């Protein structure tokens, strides 16, 4: 409908996350990868700390450690030094150079440095690419999808034009959006493969940030999609993108290789899951597996059981754009009043939503969501939710206030059921507490 902004000069309690963090996240989903942030030390230390806090896993990331004089004289000397060190010491399969606002404002041209570097060092077999991700544009979501796009570009350049392409119609490339948890990606992979397809997720955080006990320490990523599978994904007969922000990378594959694609804007709730399964059913000609039929019944039954809980309740949600869209359609199905929807920045998908969307921060959530019963945002929202006395439901990034947040499933019927129960429980507990409170005060 419309996108609004509250008039205020400063951002108060931001939900926006630097774009470069999105790039680091995307690269965690690739095996033996190293994101290299071209900026000052903090530009990599903060994302590392934040991602570690959310996923409770070691995070691979390095920095060119720019200092004042490097920026003034020759920032690329640092980058070259960093590249030399990382390549000789750890030999990553994939290296992603992430430009920051610092290199952008200083006008550092690292793209051509990388080109020369690759030519001179004869870097074959590996994948090295760069992205420009200053933090004064976009947010985590755009950083993530831009990085995936750059990665796909580089893959196409490396092998795309080599000979004719053998299209494997039984293979699907899945481009999961940044708002999906490792467990979500796993669930989507399972759903697609249950129709007889081979699935390659690019990137695949379901096997790298989901918790595993591989031994032998490495500063590179462990788990995630290996480079050869990634390259093989170019032969897929179809691309499925989940989240509107992933449409651009999907389009790259389409333009370069002619791979058709299908975008699912959301994946949360009954209808979104219906759409996905129906589509898979149609393109595969396979029946929908019994377990999903069963899960659908389970979901509907639990929504019936819980609908008293949601009736008359209002909610405020502050999330990244794609995630907001997804969550909003799920809330629609629960019949809750959506008091305020706040996105971290403006994208076509939120601009096109039927409901009013605000671009803003958690302070806006507090003001616009006054008297809401339920608050959905990342863990930064806890204090605000307390101040307006709403029940707090953690979603998005970063979530540090609960264990296993990264393993929570929100997609598919199972995910919708899990989240409906979670939200219902929170509201139920809040009601009970209020009742208790009023008795005590009498």
């Amino acid at each position, binding site marked *: 409908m419309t996108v609004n902004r509250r008039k205020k000069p400063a951002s108060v309690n931001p939900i926006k996350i630097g774009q470069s963090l999105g790039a680091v996240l995307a690269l965690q989903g690739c095996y033996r990868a190293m994101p290299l942030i071209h900026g000052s*030390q903090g530009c990599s230390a903060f994302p590392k700390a934040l991602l570690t806090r959310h996923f*409770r896993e070691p995070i691979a990331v390095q920095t060119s450690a720019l200092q004042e004089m490097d920026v003034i004289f020759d920032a690329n000397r640092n980058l070259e030094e960093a590249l030399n060190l990382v390549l000789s010491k750890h030999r990553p399969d994939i290296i992603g150079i992430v430009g920051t606002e610092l290199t952008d404002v200083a006008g550092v041209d690292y793209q051509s440095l990388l080109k020369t570097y690759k030519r001179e060092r004869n870097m074959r077999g590996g994948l090295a690419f760069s992205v420009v991700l200053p933090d004064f544009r976009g947010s985590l979501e755009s950083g993530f999808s831009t990085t995936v796009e750059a990665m796909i570009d580089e893959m196409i350049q490396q092998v795309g034009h080599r000979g004719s392409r053998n299209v494997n119609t039984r293979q699907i490339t899945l481009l999961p959006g940044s708002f999906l948890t490792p467990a979500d990606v796993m669930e989507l992979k399972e759903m697609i493969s249950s129709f007889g397809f081979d699935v390659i997720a690019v990137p695949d955080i379901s096997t790298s940030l989901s918790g595993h006990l591989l031994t032998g320490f490495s500063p590179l990523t462990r788990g995630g999609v290996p480079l050869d599978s990634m390259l093989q994904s170019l032969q897929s007969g179809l691309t499925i993108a989940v989240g509107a922000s992933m449409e651009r990378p999907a389009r790259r594959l389409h333009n370069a290789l002619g791979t058709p694609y299908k975008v699912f804007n959301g994946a949360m709730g009954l209808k979104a899951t219906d759409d996905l399964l129906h589509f898979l059913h149609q393109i595969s000609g396979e029946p929908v597996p019994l377990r999903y039929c069963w899960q659908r019944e389970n979901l509907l039954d639990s929504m019936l059981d819980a609908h008293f809980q949601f009736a008359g309740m209002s909610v405020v949600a502050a999330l990244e754009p794609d995630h907001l869209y997804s969550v909003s359609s799920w809330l629609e199905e629960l019949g809750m009043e959506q008091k305020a929807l706040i996105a971290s920045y403006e994208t076509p998908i939120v601009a096109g939503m039927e409901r009013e969307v605000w671009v803003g921060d958690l302070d806006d959530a507090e003001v616009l969501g006054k008297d809401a019963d339920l608050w959905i945002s990342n863990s930064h929202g806890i204090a605000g939710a307390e101040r307006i006395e709403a029940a707090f439901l953690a979603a998005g990034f970063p979530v540090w206030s609960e264990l296993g947040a990264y393993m929570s499933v929100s997609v598919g019927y199972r995910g919708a059921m899990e989240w409906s129960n979670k939200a219902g429980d929170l509201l139920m507990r809040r009601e009970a507490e209020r009742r208790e409170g009023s008795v005590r005060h009498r």
Partner: protein
Amino acid sequence: MDPVRKDEFDSEACGSLSPKSKPCPRPKPGEAAGGCSFDGAQITLLPIMDAAHLVHGPIACAGNSWESRGALSSGPSLSQYGFATDLNDSDIIFGGEKKLKESIDYIAGRFAPPAIFVYSTCVTALIGEDMDAVCKEAGERLHIPVIPVNSPGFVGSKNLGNRLAGDALLQYVIGTGEPEPGTPLGVNLIGEYNIAGEMWDIEKLMNSAGIAVTSRITGDARYKEITWAHRAKVNMVVCSRALLGLAKEMESRYGIPYFEGSFYGAKETTYSLRQMAYLMNDREMERRVDRLTEREESRLAMDLRPYRKLLKGKKAVLYTGGVKSWSVISALKELGVQVVGVGTNKSTEDDVRRIADRVGDDTEYIPEGGASRILKTVRERKADIMIAGGRNMYVAMKEQIPFIDINQERHKAYAGYEGLLRLAKELTYSLANPIWKLASSPAPWDKEAPPYDR
């Protein structure tokens, strides 16, 4: 005395007094770890709980870092708000000073803080924003202190940021106010940030010995109390050599004697309390401290007995920055834990000397090298536990090594006598947890079939 050399002056920034070791080594591209100066400045100033902290720059510096430090508040929470000017493309091109001015006005109008700290970032420093002028103008107009903190990330390490924050306090805050008449004057605690509430344990101890805290710099501080820090009788530099410069400057400006001390371990705690009383030059207080420390130490010895039995002879690898490397060794030694490896990457020559005083000859020094280097030491020395910062926690978890978090993100307070008992408990819980056995034994189907005679 030798004249002060340039490098010696610089070295104070990183707390190094030794000209031999390079004071602020340039972080190595591709191998660097840890935060930047901006991070350091915030670590020092954010515990001023009632002030507003505004980050002038694009979103990531604030957006990626707010609410990530473990300093606790006993009341006001404004410092936990994330304020940012959130510059966009056009602000960068046309300058962000107008937005900064409006942001300061907005925060002052809506939240009425006693002071606003404004932090520069790499980008605002690079495009040459005149932050000092904007802050000065706004401060005069709004009649509240608006303090510029010039510590953009690219000037150097976290330690340097601590020091730059200290400079801002010296320049704009300390000495600008006076305590209420009748306020008992005593000790400034410098470089104690109330991580996990450690400050409260320390203050309780000091109060029971009749020693007053004049200013907390800055754990759980209020802006006002720092303005009168110059009226204190003693400065104690707690575990932060980066703020040693602040103590030195206060000594020369206001004649306040200082000492460096720690509250990790009973011995260090007793020493620190005694030192305070001694420098206060108060016989009665010294006697009270003696009685208190004696009582506390004997009670602690009783409480620790069961844990000492379990911890005796256990080996630990300690990897933490600067001063904590030696102060925590004392605490561990008192528990009977042997430190077989210790990180020295952020330690000064002074710190290293103190470490050497406290460990055996066979202890390995880990100068640098991050996670893989620490793990190597743990394995080679057959350590039972790793004690380090949160950044290395999940590295240890993956390798199934018992771990204790000692840095700023932790949730357990280890200072003072109570803290040592808590540390003993934590060590025991961690070492005795059933998970280590469970994780190291394979699934039944992965076990080899037991040999048997047919």
